């Protein structure tokens, strides 16, 4: 099973529910703004704690309120590309990329820094501070950082937002490669119908 998500989340006064299972290599999570897509990703990454439910990713149980399982975020090994970037402001781009890579067991890494820099066209940025990158540059560095942490599954929150057509196309190619060549299940949040239809084996609709 790639992903199995059953949860109830309390967000302020609102409540978000999700219940789906997917065996597809790439599952798309779609729905209107505010539907709770990011919140579901946060829960899978271990950053939000569901009131109850069960979360499974890449065949591993991450959370199960009944069995009392709740893995820490670092034990979940998610490759999470945040909607808001979250680059570390006190580190260069290079150090941001190395952050997760150094913590990943070498045997489990499935992409190198050189490869990812090349594919995402961030080679020129490596020695820059992250505080004055452009929007699209932040996005690309965030994606590279997540991939380099040798994650067991990917959570991509609108990865192509604010990328130009050429860069977006390159990224989609990379995602396809990861989907097809690696055993890394992907959960993708996207507002682009075309993107979803091109990539997803299963589409989950949130309302």
């Amino acid at each position: 099973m790639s992903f199995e998500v059953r949860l109830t989340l309390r967000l302020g006064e609102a409540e978000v529910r999700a219940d789906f299972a997917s065996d597809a290599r790439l599952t798309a999570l779609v729905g209107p703004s505010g539907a709770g897509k990011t919140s579901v990703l946060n829960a899978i990454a271990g950053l939000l704690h569901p009131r109850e439910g069960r979360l499974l990713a890449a065949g591993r149980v991450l959370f199960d309120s009944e069995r009392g399982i709740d893995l820490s975020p670092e034990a979940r090994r998610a490759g999470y590309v945040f909607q808001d970037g979250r680059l570390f402001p006190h580190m260069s781009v290079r150090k941001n990329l190395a952050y997760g890579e150094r913590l990943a067991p070498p045997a489990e890494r499935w992409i190198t820094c050189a490869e990812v820099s090349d594919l995402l066209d961030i080679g020129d940025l490596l020695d820059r501070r992250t505080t004055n990158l452009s929007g699209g540059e932040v996005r690309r560095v965030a994606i590279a950082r997540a991939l380099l942490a040798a994650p067991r599954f990917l959570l991509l929150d609108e990865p192509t937002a604010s990328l130009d057509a050429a860069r977006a196309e390159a990224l989609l190619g990379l995602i396809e490669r990861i989907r097809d060549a690696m055993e890394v299940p992907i959960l993708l949040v996207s507002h682009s119908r075309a993107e979803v239809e091109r990539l997803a084996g299963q589409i989950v609709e949130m309302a």
Partner: protein
Amino acid sequence: MSGWLSAAEWAVIGLSLKVSLVAVLASLPFAYALAWLIARRRFPGRMLLDAAVHLPLVLPPVVTGWLLLLAFGRNGPIGGWLEQTFGITLVFTWVGAALAAAVMALPLMVRAMRLSIEAVDRKLVEAARSLGASPLRAFATITLPLSLPGIAAGAMLGFARSLGEFGATITFAANIEGKTRTLPLAIYTGLQVPGGESAVARLAIMAIVLSLGALMVSEWLVRRSGGSRAHVL
């Protein structure tokens, strides 16, 4: 310059520097831990801890010195134990002066650090965790460096406070030339002597010079590490 101050006055300055540096460096980790606890943890008694940290600020320094004497004196519970177990005497030694200075500086250090810790965006800590960092590592690589402005400010305030500490020091460590007579004590001593004003003025100028130096070091530290904290998509 060396002729401007007497050898005894240079000794006073050296001692003051030693006492203040040791006070700040030794209490820094402790102060940071307290700041972190108060900023990030919610536990019963947090408010009380916070209030306790502020105590040396509210009590007259002489009282703090007296309380130190009660606890760390040779007849005090901690002081007696230290002396019997390790043969360490704090009262009337420069280490005691450093202890007094550290206690007096603690509230200032904790507050500055706490402000900076509270300003660290937790979302960055979450990002570090999801990249595989344990809570401890996330703390060491994200929270700690991002709160550096507060650490520098706290160290600076603490150092300045230590340099100026008088009441608790004279009570707990006494005013012994060459052993515990720090700058403020020497200034006090000078004030007790008619015509001591010129010595007082010279020593006060040295105190100012020292604190200016510390100020520049701390500003430079923050700048070198890139104190900026913008980090928005």
